[in-house]
């Protein structure tokens, strides 16, 4: 079987520019969720979100492009001309819809993810082939699985996956209406968690067949070894309470990677900080791994829930964690929920394995599980 490897990746998060900055931010144990200054929040459920310092609403460049342009400009690797691009986002350039509704002077079609994809293609100078994947909060992890499938099936051998979303009044008001936000900051797997904190971020990962990477003498970060995707088919916003959908996704991912569960050394959980998500995840994880506890962590207490970017950022952090054989602490974890006791910790955990699992879930009941190897 063709191996799918990651050869380059980077991100911008509320901690700042670069994967190392995010990694160090998480290890500092301090959250990068901060007061929102971009729009009025007095009628919303919270005034906090994990915003990227320095981004402002500009007429000539969207928030997402303010993240993507510098990120891709300073890419450590040249993106080959024949790279297929997969953009993962939930709302992309949503401020064009906001502007259209407010002043009706803008063309709302500028908010379509296809338009954002065109801008990314121009920025990367690639040959103009690409697609957009949107599957709620699992968008970018599912995009990575689609890239891996395309490479495994020899459709393309070089794919750039980009994940991005911004903090907007549009989305913050929506999550407020669903009472899904923590009024203070997200506290994944904590007894007193009350909801998620929204975040904004952008990231990219260049994936190749192992053969293509070897031909170009390109250094390999790690391998996308397997994946499983499922749907709860249960509720439009809430997860299946028993975690059965995520359990099935993990089981399928293990099968796809051809490994047993005891090979997994750590888990990057979706860990949003909502009561139901975190409980569902622990049920699924406990069902798969039974008494064999292993380190589980969530990055969302640090960088918030970055929606369409979340899965990709977590995969990048997972590769770094595999490289260092240590998991980041779960930031904002003060009083561990009983279901997570012995699994999730507010401090780093070491592990030995070469395999890690990264999970995401989202609206509509989507679940993804990816097995990563180094």
């Amino acid at each position, binding site marked *: 079987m063709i191996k799918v490897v990651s050869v380059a990746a980077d991100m911008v998060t509320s901690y700042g520019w670069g994967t190392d900055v995010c990694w160090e931010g998480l290890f500092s144990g301090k959250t990068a969720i901060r007061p929102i200054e971009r729009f*009025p929040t007095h*009628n919303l459920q919270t005034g906090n979100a994990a915003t990227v310092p320095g981004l402002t609403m500009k007429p000539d460049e969207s928030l997402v492009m303010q993240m993507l342009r510098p990120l891709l400009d300073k890419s450590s690797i040249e993106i080959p001309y024949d790279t297929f691009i997969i953009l993962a986002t*939930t*709302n992309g350039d*949503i401020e064009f*819809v*906001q502007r*259209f*509704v*407010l002043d009706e002077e803008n063309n*709302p*079609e500028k*908010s*379509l*993810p*296809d338009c954002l*994809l065109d801008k990314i293609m121009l920025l990367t100078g690639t040959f*103009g*082939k*690409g*697609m*957009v*994947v*949107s*599957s*709620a909060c699992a968008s970018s992890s*599912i995009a990575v699985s*689609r890239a891996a*499938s*395309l490479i*495994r*099936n020899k*459709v393309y051998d070089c794919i750039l996956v980009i994940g991005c979303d911004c903090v907007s*009044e*549009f989305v913050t*008001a*929506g*999550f*407020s*209406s*669903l009472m899904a936000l923590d009024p203070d900051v997200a506290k994944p797997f904590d007894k007193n968690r009350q909801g998620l904190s929204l975040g904004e971020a952008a990231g990219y990962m260049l994936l190749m067949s192992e053969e293509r990477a070897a031909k170009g003498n390109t250094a390999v970060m790690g391998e996308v070894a397997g994946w*499983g*995707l*499922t*749907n*709860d*088919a*249960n*509720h*439009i*916003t809430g997860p299946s309470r028993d975690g059965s*959908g995520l359990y*099935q996704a993990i089981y*399928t991912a293990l*099968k*796809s990677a051809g490994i047993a569960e005891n090979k997994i050394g750590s888990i990057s959980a979706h860990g949003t900080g909502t009561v139901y998500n975190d409980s569902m995840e622990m049920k699924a994880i406990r069902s798969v791994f039974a008494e064999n506890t292993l380190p589980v962590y969530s990055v969302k207490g640090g960088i918030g829930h970055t929606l369409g970017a979340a899965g990709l950022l977590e995969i990048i952090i997972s590769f770094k964690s595999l490289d260092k054989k240590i998991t980041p602490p779960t930031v904002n974890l003060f009083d561990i929920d009983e279901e997570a006791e012995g699994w999730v910790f507010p401090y780093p955990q070491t592990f030995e394995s070469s395999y890690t699992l990264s999970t995401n879930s989202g*609206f*509509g*009941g*989507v679940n993804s599980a990816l097995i990563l190897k180094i």
Partner: protein
Amino acid sequence: MIVVTGIGWVNHKEYGCIIEKDKKSHEGFNSLHSCFKNESIFLYPVKNFGRFDMISRTTCFCAALALKDAGISYSNDHKHAHKRDMGIMGTNEEGCLESNINYYKDYIDSGRILARGNLFVYTLPSTPLAEAAIHFGLSGPLLHMSFKENKLSSLLGFAKRSIIEKEATAMLAVNAEESDAISFVLENKDDISNKRSLTLENVIFAAEKSSFDEMISALSDLK
């Protein structure tokens, strides 16, 4: 070999099933939900159908017709028993743009005091697929994709690879707009015994016509 075992379609005046070679007129999308209930195309009422956005409605209409065309039955027992190992993938021209505008206008009109969750949930392009997954009990992969070119052949290619990769045993591929929609059931030939089917290559060729009516006509001519 991956084959197409059901194709359902609907537009503003007609609906049909390609393999059954069945086509009927209707009096508009507003009456179609009760019409589908009466004709047992919806085997039980679609929960919350009244609050669905238009693309969620057309998605559910064409998905029901495609499953019927493929001879696949379903029931609301799936909530307590086995769900179907079938995924759903979709594409369309403008994602959820109309729902985005409706939701945000409503929020602004309310004086930015309270957004409506019932409108917000449709501001994801994957939500119509999720509504269909809930109603039909589809537990496989769910994702919305948009493509630069060859929209339908790309969608069907992803659905095919999903079965080959054993992500699900069957896939529903949906192209739903507000004015018309079409859905395809893809299965592995080895799993369907004597069920009637069309080759994926022929379906892809017929599906790449420039207009919806031409596509339905070309698909109807397939043997």
